[in-house]
């Protein structure tokens, strides 16, 4: 999928990882630089889905989140059928990642073939804010958030 939808992304200097996740956090396709530790991929996806779900909880409909840190940035992009995550160095402009992904998503909408193969691979959305995916602190935080939103 990455080579078909986002062929330019691996060529951007500083991009270290590109992963496409199904809505159940299954990895549909992934590309990375050789040195990259791919063991983080499941947690990376889970965190992304949780961020977007939390956004919905607080009535913010997010489709893109960029987290910067001292060594680089993590770009999350949500689509109705999957999620794309890109890890890169700080020198990579998020606007460039966005542009390449926007173009790729346009191609996805036109390609029945890719949509069909994704449908076969994907198992449907999961609620990643369910308590079974949260530790005690996270569950407590969500509970507080819920009470705050219910309090007039």
């Amino acid at each position, binding site marked *: 999928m990455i080579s078909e939808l986002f062929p*330019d992304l691996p*060529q*951007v*200097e500083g991009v270290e990882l590109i992963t496409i996740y199904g809505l159940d956090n299954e990895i549909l396709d992934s590309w990375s630089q050789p040195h990259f530790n791919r063991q983080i991929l499941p947690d990376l996806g889970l965190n992304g889905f949780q961020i977007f779900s939390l956004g919905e909880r607080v009535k913010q409909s997010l489709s893109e989140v960029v987290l910067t840190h001292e060594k680089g940035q993590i770009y999350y992009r949500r689509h109705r059928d999957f999620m794309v995550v890109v890890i890169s*160095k700080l020198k990579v*402009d998020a*606007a*460039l990642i*966005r*542009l*390449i992904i*926007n*173009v790729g998503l*346009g191609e996805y909408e036109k390609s029945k073939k890719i949509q069909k193969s994704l449908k076969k691979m994907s198992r449907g959305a999961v609620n990643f804010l369910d308590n079974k995916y949260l530790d005690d602190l996270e569950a407590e935080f969500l509970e507080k958030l819920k009470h705050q939103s219910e309090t007039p």
Partner: protein
Amino acid sequence: MLHLEWAVVTQLDGEKTVAEIADILALSEEESQQIFSKLFEEGLLELVTISPDYLFISSEVLDEIEYELKVLLGPIASILFEDVLNELGKSRDKFDKMSLPILVDLLTTQISDPRKQEEFQKVSLNKIKPYIL
């Protein structure tokens, strides 16, 4: 430290920045400062002046992007294009290539039709690719 200094010297190619070399060799900030300072003081490295041609693109590239916007939006595209350039604090004759993606991003927000947005982004990406990849 000598082996690290040698490792740094092998990475010097007139193009890599200090940060890039430190990253490749997994040097700490302290190590980077010490090694580069020492090499500089000993005259074993010097700063390279980057040619403007390397940083900036010709105004023709901007003209091409503006043209694509005109095809979609008509004559108002020129005004919108200038507005975005002003917003970025850039000029046509000194536009750095690294700002091309954000230029396309901001110009896209000027287009309300999602299909036209998609078309513009696709064409613009093809135009700017040679300069940014």
